[in-house]
């Protein structure tokens, strides 16, 4: 079981608003999964390098040639609120 304070902290870091009535469910579900993944502690990983890349055989750089990108209109086309060629957000500075 994960305590409610931890749920609140993770929810804030995850930028998720969680209703109070849903917190016990998340405490239980996250707790169950974390208990299950605890099994990884049993594995001896002394000196084992963590996997960071799966395709190490080549460099991924493309040739340095200018290619077309999305137009500004295309890039903004799905914005929920767009003003004067920009994405608009709630006021940040008062």
């Amino acid at each position, binding site marked *: 079981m994960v305590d409610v304070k*931890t*749920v609140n902290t993770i929810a804030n870091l*995850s930028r*998720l608003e969680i209703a109070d009535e849903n917190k016990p469910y*998340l405490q239980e579900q996250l707790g169950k*999964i974390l208990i299950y993944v605890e099994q*990884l502690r049993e594995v001896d990983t002394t000196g084992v390098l963590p996997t960071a890349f799966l395709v190490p055989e080549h460099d991924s750089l493309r040739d340095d040639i200018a290619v077309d990108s999305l137009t500004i209109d295309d890039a903004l086309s799905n914005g929920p609120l767009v003003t004067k060629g920009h994405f608009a*957000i709630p006021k940040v500075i008062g």
Partner: protein
Amino acid sequence: MSFFDTSVAEIVKAVQSGTVTAAELVEKSLAAIAEKNEEINAFITVCSDEARARAKEIDALSAEQKSTMVLCGIPIAVKDNISTKGIQTTSGSKILKGYTPPYDADSVERIIAAGAIIVGKTNLDEFAMGSSNENSAYGIVRNPRNTNAVPGGSSGGSAAAVAADMVPLALGSDTGGSIRQPASHCGIVGIKPTYGMVSRYGLIAYASSLDQIGPMGNSVEDCALLLSVIAGDDRRDSTNARKTYSNDAFSSVKGKKIGLPAEYFGEGLTDEVRAIIDEKKAKLVEAGAELVTVHLPHVSHAIATYYVIATAEASSNLSRFDGVKFGHRAEGTTSLIDMYKKTRAEGFGEEVKKRIMLGTYVLSSGYYDAYYLKAAQVRTLITQDFENAFKECNLILSPVTPAPAFMIGEKTSDPIQMYLTDIYTVSANLAGIPGISVPAGEVNGLPVGAQLMAPKWGEKGMLDAAKIIS
């Protein structure tokens, strides 16, 4: 049962020679969707107008132009986490309702150039997070073989669309088994290619180090053909390996060693599925292959490893859904942070929220080493297990799932029970190797698949053996 009861290659030949038109094929596909989709719910979006217009264009091409298109006139379904220019792409989430990408995914560009016609976008577990297609904001998908059963997930819509004969081919994506498991549950073929073979450009990312796009179809031949189209170099995906897949004739498996991992045939596997895999072993031996027992000592930890790595990557990848650039935005919020939180609370479903929170937790200060770093180390050990096994065999044969499709609602309350349905499939994603699910038998009228896995870039040999057991 299969589309026109013949192979995709034969249908393509018919279109190229003019004995059938692309328009006729599209009408056949749209009619099947109109008849069956209300019950099966395989499609979130059906693009009838676009498909009909494209069919007209293809039918107007010269015989010479058609002759270069290896998927000429073939109706195809695309999983709804793969971007299609001008066609709604939701990833099964409310947060992307109405989102129409301004560009095509690389694999979509390739199938269009090859003459395929997209008839619709298929349902999936939200952001590909699930094994049953019960987590979609656009409703559950039903298994065409038994509509009380799940089709598997997360590419459940693509699998059901092929199994219900709505399309002969579909694109899916596989992060922990999301092509192979629904293929097994619906009685079709599905391939997860080697990591880096198919470009991920335009695939809405769930777990970037595990995701691969792959083909789903009625036969090994059909899937091999589609794989040859979607594989290839793309500099827009920095993990693309510049490999191609050549759809050559199938070869014999004579003298090939087929590895049977002892860990996959122990506890947890139902007797019925075991018996079906035993029949496939016999077929391979009959064809001249040799069976050897191999060991994968760390795969018992694969599910735990997967749920740490996949959720960690998801928590980062899904931070782009913030109500600013695309998709849903909550109304009546008081500040930027409040807008983010309310937008994401309203837009994401329960399973997605749970996985984002789990990923955030395992990456957070004080827990990173104990969870994320540890899982990345165990991932190395699992990869080494496969490398060692492939020193003793050419291919690995295993079940796809411990049991056939379960009933809708059966596993929704216990997350671990649901996650364990991927026990035989997640390791291929962790190790970056290819895997295929081939229909192998039935239990109580529900299909069961057999899985073959190969070393990286070993698709050709894997498909040769898959052809034998299919």
